[in-house]
C-alpha cells in the first residue's frame, strides 16, 4: 500500500451519497442507493473489495490485521492549511481506530505455507455461512447478486466435546433416522419436538405453543418438553445457534426466548431442502466470503455507482455554522461533496488540533465516534493437511458452553472448508474458529481449547510478528505449549488416533462495533454471529434512515421472483451436477 499511484481526479465532484469502505453493509447500502437512482461514490482505502468482510490471500492477511491494530499517526498536517481555503467549512480529521488486538500468527511449516501463500484465500471475518432460507440469501436473490456468486452446501454440523469427539447433529427427519448416537427414545422425542414446531409454524390448531411458553426462556420450554441434555444442547447451540450459556442465567443476559428459538428452528427447517442441490441447511460461497461484498459492489456499479479503490479519506467537511456534513476530503486532496455519508466503522472523527469547533459542532462531537459493543469476538484461522473428519470436507462444528472447560460461557463455532470451495490448495483444509469474549485473554483461551482438542500443535518454527502486533514469538509459543500440557490429561481417550497437525494459525480479537445513525452514519463491524442476517438488517435500517422515502431494493416487475429462485436452485449448489 506504500506505492499508491497518483490519484486521478474524480468527476463529478458532487454526489447524493458517499460511502466509505466496501464492507458488506456499505456495499449493500451503495447497491440499494444506486438502485434507488441516487448518485453514489463508493470509496475504499484498500486495493481490494470487502474491507473487514473480505477474503485475503494468506500473504496479505497479517499486514491487513496489523494495519488495523494500532492508531496510525494523526491526520496529515496539511488539513490545517487547507482549512484556510474554505471559509464555509470546518475540517474534521478521520483517524483509524484499532480494530484488532492480540494478533498471533504462527507458522509451523513455513516452506509449505510460503509455497502456497497466494493459494489460500482467507476470510477475515470467519467462520461465516448462509442458511439457505435466511435474509441474506433472500436479499441476494432479490437483487440478482446471485449472478455474481456460486455456492456449495456445507455437508454437516457436529457438536464437539473435550475428548475430541464430533457428534453429528440430527437436524432433519432423515438425519435423525440415520443417526447412530441417538437412542430410539431420543429419536422419538427429538422428531416429535420438530413436528411440534412445524405444526406450530403451520398454524395447526391442536399443536399451537401457548403465548406463555413463547415468552418463557427457550431452555425452559425444552425442559418442559422432556428433552434430554444432549438433545437440548443440539437444539440450543447447533440449530438455534445460541451464543451464550442458556442454562446459567448468572452469566448470560442473552437468554433466548422460546419465540426466538422457534424462529431460529423455523429458519433452519426452511433452509433444509430449499435448494435441490444443497443437501443441508448451510451454504458457503465458492472463493470465500469476500465474494459477497464484491457481488453487491458489482450490483451497485451496474446501477451507476462510481468506485474508487486505494483512496483514503483524510477529513470530513462540515458547515462552519450549522456543523452539518457537507463532503469529504480525499487523500488526493480533492474535495467531494454529497448529501449523505456512510462511514466504515474503523474511523473515528478527530478535531484538528488548534482549532476550536463552532458550538453546534461541539454539541455533536461526543457522538462522532462509533459505539463499541460491550464485548469482542475472537477469531482463529488454522490450516491443516488432514480433515477433522476423514470422509468429509466442509462442515461446521459447535462447541456448546461448558463443553470444553467449566468456565466456557460462550459457544465456540468452527468451520472447516476444503479445496472444493476454491479457497485453498487441494489436500489442505482451512479451519475458521470464533467465539464471543469479554477480553483478549479469555478469547485466546477459548480458541486454544479448541485447537488443542482437535489438532496436534507442533512447537513453533516461525512466528510472524512485527512491532505493530507486539507479540513475542517465545511468549506465544509458550502459551500454546502450556495449553497442550494442560489438555494432555483430558485429551482424546484414544491416543492411537492421529489428530491433524496444525501447519499455520492466526489468532486475533476483533472489536464489536455497532452501526450508528447520528451526526454521521456508520456501519457495523462483522459480528459474532454465524450468518449475515443481523448485519443485513443493520444495513436496511441505515438505508431507511438516510432515505426514508425510498424503497430498499424494490421488486422490479420484469423480474419474476419464482424464476430467479428456481434458477438459483440449480446454480446454487455443487457445480458438478
Amino acid at each position, binding site marked *: 500500500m506504500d506505492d499508491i499511484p497518483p490519484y486521478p481526479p474524480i468527476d463529478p465532484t458532487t454526489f447524493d451519497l458517499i460511502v466509505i469502505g466496501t464492507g458488506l453493509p456499505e456495499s449493500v447500502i451503495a447497491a440499494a442507493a444506486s438502485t434507488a437512482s441516487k448518485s453514489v461514490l463508493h470509496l475504499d482505502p484498500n486495493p481490494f473489495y470487502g474491507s473487514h468482510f473480505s477474503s485475503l490471500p494468506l500473504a496479505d492477511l497479517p499486514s491487513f490485521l496489523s494495519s488495523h491494530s494500532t492508531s496510525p499517526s494523526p491526520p496529515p498536517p496539511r488539513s490545517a492549511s487547507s482549512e484556510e481555503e474554505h471559509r464555509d467549512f470546518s475540517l474534521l480529521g478521520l483517524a483509524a481506530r484499532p480494530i484488532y488486538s492480540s494478533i498471533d500468527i504462527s507458522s509451523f511449516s513455513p516452506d509449505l505455507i510460503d509455497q502456497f501463500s497466494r493459494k489460500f484465500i482467507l476470510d477475515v471475518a470467519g467462520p461465516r455461512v448462509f442458511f439457505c432460507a435466511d435474509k441474506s440469501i433472500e436479499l441476494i436473490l432479490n437483487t440478482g447478486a446471485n449472478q455474481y456468486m456460486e455456492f456449495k452446501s456445507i455437508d454437516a454440523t457436529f457438536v464437539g466435546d473435550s475428548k475430541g469427539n464430533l457428534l453429528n447433529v440430527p437436524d432433519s427427519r432423515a438425519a435423525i433416522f440415520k443417526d447412530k448416537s441417538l437412542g*430410539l427414545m431420543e429419536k*422419538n422425542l427429538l422428531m416429535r419436538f420438530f413436528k411440534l414446531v412445524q405444526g406450530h409454524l403451520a398454524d395447526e390448531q391442536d399443536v399451537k405453543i401457548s403465548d406463555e411458553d413463547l415468552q418463557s426462556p427457550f431452555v425452559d420450554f425444552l425442559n418442559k418438553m422432556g428433552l434430554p441434555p444432549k438433545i437440548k444442547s443440539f437444539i440450543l447451540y447447533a440449530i438455534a445457534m445460541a451464543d451464550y450459556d442458556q442454562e446459567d442465567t448468572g452469566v448470560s443476559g442473552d437468554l433466548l426466548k422460546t419465540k426466538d428459538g422457534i424462529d431460529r428452528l423455523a429458519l433452519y427447517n426452511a433452509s433444509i431442502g430449499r435448494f435441490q442441490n444443497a443437501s443441508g441447511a448451510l451454504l458457503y460461497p465458492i472463493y470465500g466470503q469476500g465474494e459477497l461484498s464484491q457481488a453487491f459492489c458489482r450490483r451497485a456499479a451496474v446501477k451507476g455507482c462510481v468506485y474508487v479503490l486505494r483512496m483514503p479519506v483524510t477529513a470530513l467537511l462540515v458547515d462552519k455554522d450549522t456543523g452539518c456534513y457537507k463532503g469529504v476530503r480525499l487523500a488526493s486532496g480533492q474535495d467531494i461533496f454529497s448529501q449523505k455519508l456512510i462511514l466504515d466503522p474503523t474511523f473515528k472523527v478527530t478535531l484538528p488540533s488548534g482549532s476550536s469547533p463552532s458550538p453546534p459542532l461541539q454539541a455533536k462531537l461526543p457522538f462522532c465516534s462509533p459505539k463499541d459493543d460491550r464485548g469482542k469476538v475472537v477469531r482463529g484461522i488454522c490450516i491443516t493437511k488432514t480433515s477433522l473428519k476423514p470422509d468429509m470436507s466442509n462442515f461446521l462444528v459447535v462447541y456448546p458452553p461448558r463443553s470444553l472447560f467449566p468456565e466456557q460461557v460462550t459457544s465456540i463455532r468452527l468451520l472447516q472448508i476444503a479445496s472444493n470451495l476454491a479457497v485453498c490448495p487441494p489436500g489442505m483444509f482451512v479451519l475458521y474458529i470464533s467465539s464471543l469474549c469479554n477480553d483478549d485473554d479469555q478469547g485466546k483461551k477459548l480458541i486454544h481449547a479448541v485447537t488443542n482438542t482437535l489438532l496436534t500443535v507442533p512447537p513453533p518454527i516461525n512466528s510472524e510478528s512485527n512491532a505493530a502486533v507486539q507479540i513475542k514469538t517465545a511468549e506465544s509459543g509458550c502459551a500454546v505449549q502450556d495449553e497442550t500440557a494442560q489438555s494432555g490429561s483430558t485429551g482424546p481417550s484414544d491416543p492411537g488416533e492421529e489428530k491433524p497437525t496444525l501447519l499455520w494459525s492466526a489468532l486475533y480479537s476483533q472489536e464489536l462495533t455497532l452501526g450508528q445513525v447520528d451526526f454521521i452514519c456508520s456501519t457495523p463491524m462483522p459480528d459474532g454471529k454465524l450468518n449475515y442476517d443481523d448485519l443485513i438488517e443493520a444495513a436496511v435500517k441505515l438505508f431507511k434512515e438516510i432515505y426514508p422515502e425510498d424503497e430498499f431494493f424494490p421488486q422490479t416487475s420484469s423480474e419474476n421472483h419464482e424464476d430467479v429462485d428456481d434458477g438459483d436452485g440449480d446454480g446454487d449448489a455443487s457445480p458438478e451436477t
Partner: protein
Amino acid sequence: MHGRPRKAPKPEDEAASAAKAQKLRALQTQFFSFHHDQIYTKEAVELSAKLLEINPESYTAWNYRKLAVEHYLSQSECGPDSVKSVLDDELRVVESALRQNFKSYGAWHHRKWVLSKGHSSINHELRLLDKFQKADSRNFHAWNYRRFVAELMNRSEQDELKYTEDMIYTNFSNYSAWHNRSVLLSALLEKKAEGFLLKENVLPEEYEFIHQAIFTDPDDQSGWFYNLWLLDQTVTTDSPLLVSTWPTCGSDVLIMGDGCQNGSFSPFTTLLSDSGSFPIILYFNQPVEGVNSSTVTIECGFDKNGYLHWEPLSVSNSQAAQVWVAHLKFPTPELDSSVEVRVGHSKGIISTRGFQYCHPSTFSFNVHVQPVERDSFQVSVAESILWREENFKIYRAQLEESIPIASFDQLCIKNGHESTASNWRTEALAKEIECFRELLSLMDCKIGKLTLARLLMAYDAMSIPFATKLVHSEEVLELYNDLMKLDPTHHRYYKDEHSFVLLQKMTSSKESLLQHCFQYKDSVSSVIGNPICLRLNNLSLSRIGAFEKLLWVQMLDLSHNELQSIEGLEAMQLLSCLGLGNNKLRSVTALEPLRKLKSLRVLDISYNQIGDHSIDTTRYLCSSPLSHSVGSELNKDETVISDASLVNYWEAFYMFKDLNLNQLDIVGNTIADEKFKSALVKIMPTLKRLDGKVLD
C-alpha cells in the same frame, strides 16, 4: 410427485391443452392409417415417435413400434450394427416419452421389451434409473424396472440391497424401497447367500434398522409395513406344522347311535353317527396341498385297504386348505380297535408358499363302535332342540376326564424339535415387545398398539407348548378395546381381532373351556347322544376362531353375538347342532361354510339380517352363483331349478340343497317370508321342523 398441491389450470393452460389435443388428433388419425395399412417407412415410424412424445399413454403406438421393429429385423440384410441402432432409437423414444410422463406403463414396458432383445447396452439403464429415482424416489415403475435391469445384468442382490439402503437413508418414507428390501432379503435368504444363511442372524439387524424409522416418525406408515413383514418372517415357520387333529392322540372314541351313555367314555369323545363312518380331521398351521392316502396313511384293524379320500376344507374350492378331512368307514358290528394315523412320512404335503411338511408325526386312538338302533334314531331326530337358557346346565367334568384340548398340547410337544430351533423367534418377539412398550410409554400411537397386540399374541402362541395359558391375553384385549375407541374407522377389524383373542383365551385352558361347556336338558333323552354343548353366546363376538381347539364340538351355541361371518366354521366337522340366532349375518352366502358340515342336523339362524344384502360382503373371495363351479352344479339339478318358485332363491337353493337339516329356525330374517319358507321345504326334503313347526 408426492406432496405437491395441484394447481387449478389457468385459462391459457386450457387453451394450450386444447391446441395440444387438436394437434394430437391430427397425428393420431395419420398414425392409425399407417398402422392399419402396416406401413413401416421411416416417415411413418417417426410419426409414431412424435405421437408418443406428446402422449406416452398411447398403447397402440407402442405396439405399432414393436411391429415396426419386428418388421425391420425380419429383413435379412440388416447387420448387428444396424439392429443395435434401430433398438437404440427405440430407447431414445422411450426416454423422451418418460420425460413427458415418468409413470407411463406403456413406455416402461416398451423399454423392457427392447432390452429383452439383448442387443442394447444395459449400463446406461442404471444411470437413467438413478435420474428417475432421484426425481421421484417412490416411483414404483422405476423400482419395477430396476428389478428387471438388475436381474438382466446379474447385479448382485447385495449391491441392490445397498442401493435400497441409500434410498432409505435419503428418505425413509418410501414404500417401494422397503418393499424392494423385503424382496431382496427373501431372495438372499432363500439362496442362503453368504451372510444370509440364517434368518436369525439377518432379522435382528433388520429390526434394528426399522426401529430407527419407526421411532423417528411413528406416523409414517411405510416403516410399519416393513415391520409387519419382518414380524411375519419371524413368526411364520417355513415348513407347515400339524397343530391339531380329531380324534386326538391317545383318545378313546365311542361311536354310537342308541343314546346310551357308557360310563367309561367322556362325552367329549362320544360321537353319534348315522352314516357308518366317522371323520378324521387334520388341522395345519397354514394352508397345505397334497394331503392324500400316500402322504397320510392309516393303520387300523377294520379297514385293510387303507385308502382314504382326503378332502380340503376350504370354501374357495382350491386344492389347498388348512383343514383336511377324511371319512373312515367302520363295520356295523360292535368293534374295539385302535387306529394309527401317520402324517407326512412320505413327502408331498407342501405349504402354499412352497415349503415341505417335514415333521413326520404319528397319532393313534381307539375306536369303540356300538350298534345303532334305527328306531330310537328315528325318534330322536323328531325331537326339537330349543336354545333356551333353562335347557342348559353347566357341565361338571369328572376329575380325570380328558378334554381334547389337553391332548393338543401333547401333539405340539411332539413337534418339539421345532421349538428349540425357534428360540431366536421367541427372543426376537420378546425384544420387539419391549421395544414397542417403550414407544407406547412415550406416546399414544394406534399402529404401535396394534403391533404390540399382534406381538403379544404371537409370543403367547409361540410359548404355548411350555406355558399352559395365554399370559398376555388380558392386555391384548385391553389394547383392542382402546383401539376401537381411538380409531373408529377400523372398528370392525379391531372387533374381529378382539373376538379372535377372546376365543383363544377361552380355549387356552381346560378350566376356562369348561366354563362354557353345558349339558343339554336331561342327558338321556337327548337327540344327539350326549354331547357337550359349547356355549359361546352373548360374548359380542364378531368373528370366530381357535378352531384347532374346537374340532371335537358337536353342539355349539353362538347366539346373541355380532357375527357377520362364520368363516372357518367348516373345520368343525362334527357339528350337528348349531345356534346362530340373533347375530348379524346379512346374506345367505354368508352361510357358505355350513355346506361343508355334513353332519349338521339342527340349525338356528333366526333373527339375523339375512336378505339385507345379496352377497356376503365381509369376504373378498366368495363363490357366487355366477362363478363357473356353481353354474355347473346348478345345471345338474335342472329339474329342481326349473320349479318356478325356486327361481328367485337360487342362492338359498345353492346353500341349502346339500344340507341334511332336520330342524331349521330362520324366523326374524328379511328373507324369511312364507314363499321363501315353502321354497326351503322343497329344497330340503329331510327337514322335519321349520321355525318350530313340525312339517308333514
